[in-house]
Every structure is written in structure tokens, then in C-alpha cells.
């Protein structure tokens, strides 16, 4: 039975070799040489240092195209025209599925036809040297962003390739992203990824790790997201990770979002060992966007405003073309600049909103319930506790495509637009908290003159893309 213990060095080496055998480009990884390579990188490309020393939120977009030259050009553009502080490299879906052969074919097609036959950058196929070419060509730190349940080879290659930040985690890159991997399996995979990051860290190359906070992006109650961040943070810390960026996806209610980001930071400091530097990342609205760039800019504007008030260390921006598909680079840069303008205009202002502390306390209480459930079930072992909690539905993620989560929790907004829980399933939550949510939701149901039902949930899922925060019944108008 897998436990929350650091992978021993020899075991690390054994897995590393096995993983690198999966695909020819794995051969080019040489840890010692890679450490030296990282040491040769200039200070402004050291991801953890740049992020941790910033005094205002840094902005980062999402972006990945199959060909190396195109990716270089795209990132340079986002850095210059978009004024991005941190750059991403989003990996294609085949690589995420470990279907390296399909990714290779896609890359070939892309090279032959010039068309983007993949939805991201196939880093494994580009190999260590391809990655380094990218790192050298662009003038800011770059993170690997993906969604890969088994990211071991991807980590080995991209770390050796000079990337110093790596998104994901065993829960956050499993539950929302796949139905093909068990949780025990992904935890084991990610222990390796974190252990490898830890090995670099030990040698002075602090690889930044970023659990994916938004989960399914769709009305995720803050405490669920934060609990997952804390668990993934703890697992990573065990393996030696020392730079952790905990994530959270905007729900759209300013008070709740600001409160959640504060709770995330405070609980992160509290739960994670002292030697870990904790930073936070705020994702602009991750759910369905309006099918209209002008309206999408409104959603982005609200995100920027929230970020200015909450002051996370990093903001992942959306583009006005989010609804439609992978954005043009111009639209991507526009999302960055719109966000930048709002943040820069609002961040020097003292904007203290009533009720943030109260909401933060509620979120913290909820999160503690979930964390207690994990610790209790695992008898102190986070891995066991996590497996058992998910198995029992004591920990759960709404709209989960994965069988590893019960998926019984259903969220809905209260009358103020805060995300509450309508169906609890077996979620480990105090009755008192359940009553608070229940009261808030029945207040809304009364206001709308209808029952609490899946209809309400479905309306809330569509609301922002239809121009509102709360999915009110249509025939009753705006109020």
C-alpha cells in the first residue's frame, strides 16, 4: 500500500530509468548535466525566485502550439505584446495521454502542413534539446502546463530541458482531466514527479510546483479546492519540493474569491512545512465563457478587479476568445493587457470589503473538516487518507468526469452569488456548516420562488456565459 513517504534515492533512480525508456527522447536526460544547465540560466529565468520576489501579481497566460519555432514566436509575442511576466507552455492532449506516437505524428503533420494538428506543445517529442532551445529563446521564466495523469516522463524531460515550474498534481490532474486512471496510480506517479523536483531542489535548483486549483472549473466550492491544494502541497513537500504555488479558480463572487485566496494562503502557511515557500495563483474564471468577446472582456475585467483586491502572487489570465477555442495570440495578449490595466488601476487603492473575514472563516472551517477527514481516515498518512476519503465520497469534486471521485456533490449559488453546496453526497462536513449552506440556498430558492433542484445548478453553470452571475429562472426577468 502506497504511503506518504519520500521515495528513496535508489528507487527514484530505478523509476527514472524505467520511465525514460518509454520513449527514445528519454535517453537524453542526464540529471547532473541538467543541474549544471539550470545553474547556467540567468536570474530572470529562475521561476521560483522571480515569482517569490515579486511585489505585485505576476501575469501568465496559457499557450501551446506544436512546432518549436511557432512556440518560441508565440511566447516572445505574449511576453512583448502581452507584457506577460511569466510564460507557459501548454502540452498537447496526446502527450498528456502518454500517446507519444500520436503526438509524434501530429507534430510531423504540423511541420509538413503548417497547421496546428495538436492542441499544444509535445514536449516529450521535442526532447531535452528542443525544450532548451525554447527556454533560451524566450526572456522570462517558463512553466509546463498540461493536465497529465502520468507526467513522469514529461517531468524528466522538461526539467532537464530547463523548465523550472510544473503544474499539476495527483488529484488535480486526475479527477478533472480523466476517467482512465485510478487515484492510487496517479499519486504514485506524482510522488515521482515531486521527488524529481525535490532532487533538483536539493541541488539548489528550486523547481516550482503548482497544483491545479480550479479542478473542474465549474462552480467548485472554495473549501474543496483548497483541501485538494493542501493535500497536493503536503505530498509534494514530503518529496522535497520547496516552492509551491497553490491555485484557486475564480467563482465570480468578489467577497468569496478574496476570502478564498486569503484562506488558501493562510492554510497553506499553516499546513505546509516551514521550509516550503508558499505562493498563490488566481485563475480568471475557468467555467464556460460568454460567446462574445466584448462580454468575455467583462468577465476578464471582474477577474482583474478581484485579483487587485486579493493580491495573489500570480494570475492566470483568460482571453476574450475563451469560448470559441484556442485563442489567437493577439486575443491572448489582449486578455493579458486588459487584466493588467484593471489590476494596475485598482491595486494601489485600499479596497476592503465587508464580510470577507466572515467568509474566510467559513471557508477555513469547511476546509478543516475536509482535512480532518483525510487525516483521520489515513491515521495520519495523507496518501491513505486521501484515497479513502475519495473512495468514501468524504472528499469529492463536483462535475468530476472520473470514477475516482463520487461526483455526488452538487454546487449552486446563493442569493449573493456565492457558491454553496446543494447536494452533499457523502462529503465530510459538519452539520452546522451544512445548515449554513442550506439556509443560504433556501433564501435564494425563496427569492426565485422555486425549489432547489438540478435545474438551479444547470442554470448556474450557464449563467456567466449568458451574462449573469446567478442563474435566475428566465421568465422572472433580471431582478
Amino acid at each position, binding site marked *: 500500500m502506497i504511503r506518504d513517504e519520500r521515495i528513496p534515492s535508489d528507487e527514484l533512480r530505478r523509476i527514472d530509468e524505467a520511465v525514460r525508456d518509454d520513449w527514445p527522447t528519454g535517453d537524453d536526460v542526464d540529471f547532473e548535466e541538467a543541474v549544471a544547465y539550470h545553474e547556467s540560466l540567468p536570474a530572470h529565468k529562475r521561476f521560483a525566485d522571480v515569482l517569490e520576489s515579486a511585489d505585485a501579481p505576476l501575469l501568465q497566460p496559457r499557450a501551446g502550439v506544436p512546432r518549436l519555432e511557432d512556440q518560441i514566436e508565440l511566447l516572445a509575442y505574449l511576453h512583448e505584446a502581452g507584457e506577460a511576466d511569466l510564460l507557459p507552455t501548454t502540452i498537447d492532449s496526446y502527450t498528456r495521454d502518454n500517446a507519444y506516437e500520436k503526438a509524434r505524428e501530429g507534430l510531423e503533420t504540423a511541420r509538413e502542413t503548417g497547421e496546428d494538428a495538436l492542441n499544444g506543445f509535445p514536449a516529450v517529442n521535442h526532447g531535452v534539446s528542443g525544450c532548451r532551445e525554447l527556454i533560451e529563446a524566450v526572456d522570462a521564466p517558463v512553466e509546463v502546463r498540461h493536465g497529465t495523469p502520468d507526467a513522469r516522463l514529461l517531468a524528466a524531460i522538461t526539467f532537464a530541458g530547463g523548465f523550472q515550474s510544473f503544474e499539476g498534481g495527483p488529484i488535480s490532474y486526475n479527477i*478533472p482531466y480523466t476517467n482512465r486512471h485510478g487515484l492510487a496510480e496517479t499519486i504514485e506517479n506524482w510522488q515521482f514527479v515531486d521527488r524529481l523536483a525535490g532532487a533538483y531542489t536539493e541541488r539548489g535548483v528550486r523547481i516550482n510546483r503548482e497544483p491545479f486549483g480550479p479542478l473542474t472549473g465549474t462552480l467548485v466550492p472554495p473549501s474543496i479546492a483548497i483541501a485538494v491544494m493542501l493535500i497536493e502541497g503536503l505530498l509534494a513537500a514530503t518529496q522535497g519540493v520547496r516552492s509551491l504555488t497553490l491555485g484557486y479558480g475564480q467563482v465570480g463572487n468578489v467577497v468569496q474569491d478574496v476570502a478564498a485566496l486569503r484562506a488558501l494562503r493562510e492554510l497553506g502557511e499553516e499546513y505546509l512545512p516551514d521550509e516550503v515557500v508558499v505562493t498563490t495563483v488566481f485563475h480568471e474564471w475557468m467555467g464556460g465563457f460568454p*460567446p462574445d468577446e466584448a462580454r468575455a472582456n467583462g468577465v476578464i475585467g471582474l477577474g482583474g478587479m478581484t485579483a487587485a483586491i486579493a493580491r495573489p502572487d500570480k494570475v492566470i489570465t483568460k482571453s476574450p476568445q475563451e469560448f470559441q477555442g*484556442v485563442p489567437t495570440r493577439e486575443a491572448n495578449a489582449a486578455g493579458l493587457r486588459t487584466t493588467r490595466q484593471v489590476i494596475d488601476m485598482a491595486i494601489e487603492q485600499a479596497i476592503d470589503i465587508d464580510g470577507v473575514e466572515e467568509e474566510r472563516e467559513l471557508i477555513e472551517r469547511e476546509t478543516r473538516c475536509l482535512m480532518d477527514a483525510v487525516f483521520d481516515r489515513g491515521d495520519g498518512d495523507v496518501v491513505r487518507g486521501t484515497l479513502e476519503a475519495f473512495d468514501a465520497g468524504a472528499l469529492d469534486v463536483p462535475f468530476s468526469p472520473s470514477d475516482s471521485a463520487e461526483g455526488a456533490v452538487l454546487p449552486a449559488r446563493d442569493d449573493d452569488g456565492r457558491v454553496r453546496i446543494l447536494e452533499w453526497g457523502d462529503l465530510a462536513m459538519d452539520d452546522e456548516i451544512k445548515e449554513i449552506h442550506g439556509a443560504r440556498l433556501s433564501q435564494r430558492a425563496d427569492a426565485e420562488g422555486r425549489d432547489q433542484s438540478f435545474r438551479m445548478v*444547470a442554470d448556474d453553470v450557464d449563467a456567466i456565459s449568458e451574462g449573469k452571475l446567478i442563474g435566475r429562472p428566465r421568465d422572472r426577468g433580471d431582478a
Partner: protein
Amino acid sequence: MTQTVVLGVIGSDAHVVGITILEQAFSAAGFDVINLGVQTSQEEFAEAAVAHDAEAVLVSSLYGHAEQDCRGFHDVLESAGVDALTYIGGNLAVGQDDWERTRETFRELGFDRVFDSETDPEDAIAALRQDLQITPTEAERLTISS
């Protein structure tokens, strides 16, 4: 007599929210929905269609690989002996593609109807009723008078 539809997200795609909404909407509209969930293979669609004698197969794809994932799909259905309507919907192209071109691509792949991601579930239900020649007004009249 209720009609059965098979619903799922094809390929490696795990975007589940759309089909969750669609499942509810089609059920509420009186269909029997077999929801295969995300990351469903062509074969799984075919098997389910046969097993449940489905009137329609509803394929969802959001992540931009729909075209690759659907190549040969209608051959697989045919070999399995499936004779159902096939709809596809969601976000069917990578990037900011022209919708008419996208629709044409999927029509040529064999789908009876192609829906973009602005589609309201009600529109898809109306289309299916029409294609299956269920007149909703008649159905409603029957319900009312029964």
C-alpha cells in the same frame, strides 16, 4: 414508447459538464439516455448503441481533437450494425476556425447533424424530435388528453 439515445464524449476528451447538462435535458424531454461519460471510444459508442437499440448517438467533443477522434467512426457503427441518427456537438475545431467549414467537415464524416457550442439543449431536442418524427405538439396533446 420512450426512445433511447446514447450520449458520450469521444476520444481522450474529459469535458463532462456539457453532457451532464445534455443528459438532464434529454431525460427531462422524455428520452431514455445512456450516458457513457467522457473518454469514450468509437467502439464503446457502437456497443452501447447496439445493446440499447438506440435511435440516436450523440457525440460530444470540446477539446479540439474531434476530427481525429471521429475519423472512421461511421464505419465502426456500420460494422456493428448500428442504424441510428448521429449528432455531434461542442467545440469541434482547434482555434478560431470558420464554423461553416467545420460543419462541412463533420457532415462529410457522416454525422446527420452538427451543433456548435452555442447550441441550447432545447434546439438539439427539437431537431431530434423532428428527425425521429415525434411531433412534440401531438405528444403534448396526448399527454394532456390522457
